[in-house]
């Protein structure tokens, strides 16, 4: 999948937009599908394709995730593992995670992910 795609949000799944030309993957909203592994498969494949493509272009994740169930957390960890691997090979990858300052749980969630990542990972409060 070497193109861009958009998945509109649903009750239990976040909005996802992947922009191949800009090298940006944006995910926002709540994520608690019953089968997160299936839900995130297309996104994970897109990241793999992008990172495998020639040109060594930078990839940035723009995240405004709020509530995540544990299977979504696991899928997100798989995504960060892909980024970590690319980073180790010298690829420019980064994450910008935005959260509502009224909900400190989201900040803690983002921080726990960041603990296992060595690439640039910014966590920013945004109303």
């Amino acid at each position: 999948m070497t193109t861009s795609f958009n998945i509109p949000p649903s009750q239990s799944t976040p909005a996802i937009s992947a922009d191949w030309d800009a090298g940006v993957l944006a995910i926002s909203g709540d994520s608690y599908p019953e089968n997160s592994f299936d839900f995130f498969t297309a996104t994970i494949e897109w990241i793999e394709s992008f990172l495998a493509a020639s040109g060594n272009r930078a990839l940035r994740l723009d995240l405004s995730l709020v509530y995540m169930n544990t299977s979504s957390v696991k899928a997100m960890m798989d995504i960060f593992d892909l980024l970590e691997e690319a980073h180790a090979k010298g690829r420019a990858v980064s994450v910008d995670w935005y959260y509502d300052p009224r909900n400190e749980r989201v900040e803690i969630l983002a921080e726990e992910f960041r603990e296992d990542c060595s690439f640039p990972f910014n966590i920013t409060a945004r109303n």
Partner: protein
Amino acid sequence: MDDIDFFGLRELFTRNRILLCFNGPISRSLIEEIGNALKNYLHADNAQPSAAMDVFGAYIEMTQNIRHYALRQGYGEAESSATILVARDDGGAYVVQAGNVVETADGEQLTARVGQLAGLDKAALKAAYKEQLRRPRDEAASSGAGLGLIDIARKSSRPLAARLMPMPDGKAFFSLQAVI
């Protein structure tokens, strides 16, 4: 059929400050719809956003664990039922409780696991969570309910409590209570 003591049922709900209660077959869409009702209740109840998210999260992990278990066991509709309750205790804390029919051996294993988690402090729970998160997916799936249980324990202000009530045919009713 005996006449249901409807007034008595109402009194029971009121006395126990029950916000939400459900008993019956649970589907994916029903989990979402009840979850929506719960979100609205918590909002109307002026719950802090972080507390509301913890209550909602405990509800989601419990009910999705029940669904995954019933699917894995190939249970029919009657056995795929869940009993769900959200209430407030005397101190104003939220109580999230869910129960389902399980094989007795699975119920005993789960109860033992809950007991282990109850002995862990927040730091140890975080370490257990990260360790479970790193386990391969198939391994995590076979042990069942691993990550979800730890997640609920981390959201709780008191140790998780589990109960197992024997039922006929080698089955038991497992219930889990989290105080947020």
